[in-house]
């Protein structure tokens, strides 16, 4: 059965190749199983690299990613704080193409035909797959913040996909008048990088403390609690006393409206003039997951053992976009899930050994110079979900040496995970 199916796919692929592109045609006539991966971040790039590396050429791997230089969202807050350059966050796909033989297609995936098992792109290509891995990250929920939509992201940046938005936000913070106000509209759960908004507050405060010490930071937050709250609040009172005010849902932090033209933020009807307004709206799976018809609500539900879609056994969803259970939406999680998925996909397509799933996550955050904290957990696959097994978190009152070591460790992790993603 398996051989017949593959032979059939090979024929279909050859036909598609005639009006697709030369880059899709291989001399061996597509006898190999094909994996197509959409999204070249912590999930997609890792999955592409591991499948290509471990299959020793037995699987054709195509990675569809629109950007030629990928800027990591993780560590982009450190750019806002002046601890990293934007260049240091940029990564090319050259090694994946040159050393791993991955077919890197810089294009937008705009359609998935689950019956024909093809992906179409904005550039007009149709790319067949045996297994499709979607790792599209996040998009924003329309109308999540009253008064804001993507057309206002220049006046009020989200800066939650790293790159030009992050640079824009930093430029706006640097241009704030002395004593001005930086406002953040924080997102509701679940969202990418749970400590991210609060690490960002720390980094913005660090920059303002140096350049604009009378400035204020105002957070409108729809959540009662947030990740590493005790650690952040302790750090804020130590390093940035009197600068940061957070309005939670008990005081209307969940009832927010913005006016990008007037540069005002209304919290529970009380209007404040602000100089920078960082709107981080509610999130959902990257649009291609919705287009593929594998979402339920805002996210794509998956089976824990191999990250396969609960709606289509030939599609896997990684990282922020999937609903998997207990893991936070983080680059570390996506990288961890990608390796489990790569092992399972390779096993399904080539008969290689499939080892039991195991997952882990650690999130480091920087509060101020050499003041790093972390939280992490290990996870296992159960029938219902990816379930937490064990975890840890930094403690309030740790020594300066421990905090510095934690920060230095995070820098090492950045180098490690990006080597694991991009080779």
């Amino acid at each position, binding site marked *: 059965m398996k051989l017949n199916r593959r032979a059939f796919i090979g024929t279909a692929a050859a036909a598609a190749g005639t009006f697709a592109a030369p880059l899709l045609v291989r001399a061996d006539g597509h006898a190999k199983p094909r994996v197509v991966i959409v999204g070249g971040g912590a999930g997609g790039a890792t999955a592409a690299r591991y499948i290509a590396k471990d299959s020793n050429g037995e699987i054709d791997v195509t990675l569809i990613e629109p950007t030629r230089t990928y800027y990591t969202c993780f560590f982009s807050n450190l750019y806002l704080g002046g601890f990293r350059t934007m260049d240091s966050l940029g990564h090319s796909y050259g090694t994946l193409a040159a050393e791993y033989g991955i077919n890197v297609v810089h294009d937008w995936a705009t359609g998935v035909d689950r019956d024909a098992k093809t992906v179409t792109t904005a550039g007009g290509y149709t790319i067949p797959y045996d297994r499709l891995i979607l790792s599209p990250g996040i998009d924003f929920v329309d109308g999540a913040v009253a008064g804001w939509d993507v057309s206002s992201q220049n006046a009020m940046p989200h800066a939650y996909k790293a790159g030009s938005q992050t640079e824009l936000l930093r430029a706006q913070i640097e241009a704030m008048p002395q004593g001005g106000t930086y406002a953040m509209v924080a997102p509701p759960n679940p969202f990418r990088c749970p400590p991210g908004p609060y690490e960002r507050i720390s980094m913005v405060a660090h920059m303002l403390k140096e350049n604009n010490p009378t400035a204020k930071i105002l957070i409108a937050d729809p959540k009662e609690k947030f990740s590493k709250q005790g650690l952040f609040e302790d750090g804020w009172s130590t390093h940035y006393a009197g600068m940061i005010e957070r309005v939670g849902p008990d005081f209307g932090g969940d009832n927010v409206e913005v006016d990008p033209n007037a540069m005002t933020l209304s919290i529970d009807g009380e209007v404040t003039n602000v100089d920078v307004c960082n709107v981080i709206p509610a999130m959902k799976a990257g649009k291609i997951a919705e287009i593929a018809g594998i979402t339920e609500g805002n996210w794509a539900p998956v089976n824990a053992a191999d990250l396969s879609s609960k709606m289509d056994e030939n599609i896997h969803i990684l990282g922020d976009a999937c609903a998997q259970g207990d893991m936070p939406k983080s680059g570390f999680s996506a990288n961890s899930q990608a390796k489990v998925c790569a092992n399972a996909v390779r096993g399904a397509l080539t008969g290689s050994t499939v080892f039991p799933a195991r997952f882990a996550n650690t999130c480091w955050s920087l509060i101020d110079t050499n003041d790093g904290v972390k939280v992490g957990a290990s996870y296992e696959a159960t029938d219902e979900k990816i379930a937490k097994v064990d975890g840890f978190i930094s403690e309030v009152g740790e020594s300066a040496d421990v905090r510095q070591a934690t920060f*230095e460790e995070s820098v090492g992790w950045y180098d490690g995970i990006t080597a694991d993603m991009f080779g």
Partner: protein
Amino acid sequence: MSSLRNTISTVAIAAFAAVAHADVGGDAERGENLFRQCSGCHQVGAGAEDRVGPHLNGIFDSPAGDSEGYRYSNGMERAAAGGLIWTYETLDAYIKDPRSLVSQTRMSFGGFDDQQDRDDVLAFLRRFSDNPQDIPESAPTAVAVDHEIAPEILAIVGDPAYGEYLSGECTACHQTSGAANGIPSITHWPSEDFVIAMHAYKDGVRQHPVMQMMAGRLSNEEIAALAAYFKDIE
């Protein structure tokens, strides 16, 4: 003439300073105590062997990367090819900040900031150089183990293929190239050292929350598999 005299006196002072460091400045007894920070990886003394790091007998005035059979990092190989010799000055610079002297060294050590500490450690190490007969007839000073584990655990032969799969959990942070920058290198360790280190985390003897969590759910066989994989990783 006066400029020549100046030059001579500068040279003389530099030479004197070097002698002072080498023969007078360090307290070898104190250095022996400080060397405990090194002895997890390096042995020195009679019968010392290469472990996680190379043995340090005869290190003074030897070329870098010279311990036969030890697999050095690419960074150290480059430094050796560039002619690095372990003198008092280069050793001092290396143990002050290893990566600033040899970029991409696998030596995962933050460095001795204090000049006196460095002088003392080097005074101790110097006992094991110059003249081989000066090496005391005692057991190796280094004790590579900070944790006792059962011999049957150490005897497990790991499956490197399984280790390769499991290594995905390690390589989210530790680089397969062996580069160490804030996160230690774990490549090319002797299996025994790797296994002991992982069990020390698993049993809570070594304090690091991420490593305790990661090691905590690895079985004895899985730890052996990882040790086998990372020992011979390309």
